[in-house]
């Protein structure tokens, strides 16, 4: 007896059989391109990683071995001295003159990049909140001003800001008219404050906050929440993903910023990590072993952040396009 049910299942079987056969054909046809893809991709990837591998390897070598010919990929006589010197731990062959400062650079970078990130999140989101959710005279004009400067490259403001910092009144030996001293040059204020707000960040957060329904805010107001509480307990939590994305980018950008510290910082005590490493190279210091260890240490925080936030990071890049 053949019921319609049986018939259909038999049809299903021939169908799945056909699909399987098609899949096998597809796999066979696919095998060649796949092999080709590996042949092209794997050596390429190795070439991309090789410089890092060598850097890490060199950071565990004695300075003489770094210069050896042929180069050593696996340290023949591995040592932790470079890292010890870097973190100020005394060693037999230690370079006392450099170790005094180098750890300080790392600490400076952590402090400066963290401060910039926290301040930016705070100031950007406060400005974004009023642009997105409040009515007040002049709002659109001010927002337009922010937008208009998005196209201006930061190089334009470099020189005037240097002069402005030099003349900040009552700081760095300046009198009330901003004369006589060096103001905020060569200081943490100078490193942090010019980067403490970003028009681009305000813009991104505002766009995100526009999607939050006004009813939520009104409900909180009816319940007697003040403006700051509405912002802090209603709007900010709902802006989480956008805040996270901008925080990651801001931190990484601040961490590796080089030009601004180079211009305003003069005393090694205030060097950030990239500036310290660069001055090392430019001034032709010979302690390449330390430099290798320092480069590894400077890279680790960003790699760790990237590994943790990989998905968000890659999504954020195609969304915002920071970091060219």
């Amino acid at each position, binding site marked *: 007896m053949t019921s319609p049910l049986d018939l259909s299942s038999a049809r299903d079987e021939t169908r799945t059989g056909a699909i399987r056969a098609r899949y096998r054909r597809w796999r066979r046809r696919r095998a060649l391109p*796949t092999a080709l*893809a*590996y042949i092209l*991709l794997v050596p*390429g*990837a*190795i070439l*991309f*990683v090789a*410089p*890092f591998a*060598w850097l890490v390897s060199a950071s565990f070598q004695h300075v003489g071995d770094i*210069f050896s*010919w042929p*180069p050593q990929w696996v340290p023949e006589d591995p040592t932790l001295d470079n890292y010890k010197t870097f973190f100020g731990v005394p060693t037999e062959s230690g370079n006392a003159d450099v170790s005094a400062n180098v750890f300080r650079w790392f600490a400076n970078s952590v402090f400066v990049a963290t401060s910039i990130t926290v301040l930016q999140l*705070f*100031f950007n989101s*406060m*400005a974004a909140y009023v642009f997105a959710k*409040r009515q*007040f*005279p002049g*709002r659109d004009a001010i927002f337009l*001003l*922010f937008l208009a*400067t998005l*196209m*201006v*490259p930061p*190089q*334009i403001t*470099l*020189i*005037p*800001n*240097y*002069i*402005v910092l030099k003349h900040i009144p009552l700081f760095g030996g300046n009198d009330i008219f901003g004369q006589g001293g060096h103001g905020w040059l060569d200081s943490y204020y100078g490193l942090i*404050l010019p980067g403490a*707000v970003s*028009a681009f960040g305000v813009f991104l957060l505002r766009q995100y906050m526009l999607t939050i329904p006004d009813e939520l805010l009104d409900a909180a107001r009816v319940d007697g929440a003040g*403006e700051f509480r509405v912002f802090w307990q209603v709007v900010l939590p709902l802006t989480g993903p956008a805040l996270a994305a901008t925080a990651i980018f801001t931190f990484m950008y601040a961490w*590796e910023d080089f030009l601004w510290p180079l*211009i305003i910082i003069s005393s090694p005590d205030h060097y950030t990590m*990239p500036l310290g490493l*660069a001055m090392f*190279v430019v001034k032709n210091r010979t302690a*390449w072993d330390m*430099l290798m260890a320092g*480069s590894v240490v*400077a*890279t680790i925080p*960003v790699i760790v*952040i*990237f590994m943790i936030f990989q998905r968000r990071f*890659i*999504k954020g890049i*195609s969304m915002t396009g920071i*970091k*060219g």
Partner: protein
Amino acid sequence: MLRNWNAYLFLAPGLLLFSVFTLFAMGFALYLTFHEWSIIQPEQPFVGLDNYRELMSDERFRRSVYNTVYFTGASVPLTMLVGLAVALLLNQPLRGRGLLRVMYFLPVVTPFVVVAIIWKWLYNGDFGLFNYYLLKTNLIDEPLLWLADKNLAMPSIILMSVWAGVGFSMVVYLAALQAVPEELYDAAKVDGGGAWVRLRHVTIPMLRPATLFLMVMGIIGSFQIFTQIFIMTQGGPVDRTTTMMFYIYEAAFKFYRMGYASTLAYALFAMLFIFTLIQLRLYRRAYE
């Protein structure tokens, strides 16, 4: 009105910093272009259009524009092409593609100063790995000087910048590739389109917005190239790698000519502005 006053409080810190360090700074930079301004001189005389006149006849400025355009013209398309190739290969169902993607992306998250340091070492004439392997494989007979050779210096910088940037364009292209609807490929297959036809007439047109985005970001970024130059060549040999940004830096902070340096910065701005306008046009056409 009373309900609104605190909106200004929210805006105050951001607006204050923005007014000083962006708005005022832009105006002040323009003001500087009309002055002879040195931070070590007590006098800052008004010089009218002298800075602009000097710009017109400045041989080094012309050189720096040429170098910047050379760098941009080579590095941006190369980075995009290699990135596209890697993305196309990685867009297939491969085992370990997550790992491969991270490997190609690693240079992007590495601080640029570190990248420059590694590559300066790789290019080293005496101990560098490039010379070692090229000599060993008999591709060259004697060590190349790379960064010290006036014809090789800029290509060396370009090669290193492509290496550092490929991961970025790969990620952008991968995201765009994943958004191409499968039906389009099926339709092309039904019409008998081979792999090349599908790439040429389906994939590449669909990737156009991503391509334009990368072009805009790439051009803006490479017009401002500085870190590599500062660490690897300091503009040499004989100004072969003096880019506009490096020249601005030298004028302002080596020769303390803030006025002239601001004029140079505005010239850079003007060039970027024109580029951006052209690209906005292209954008609009891509989305129509």
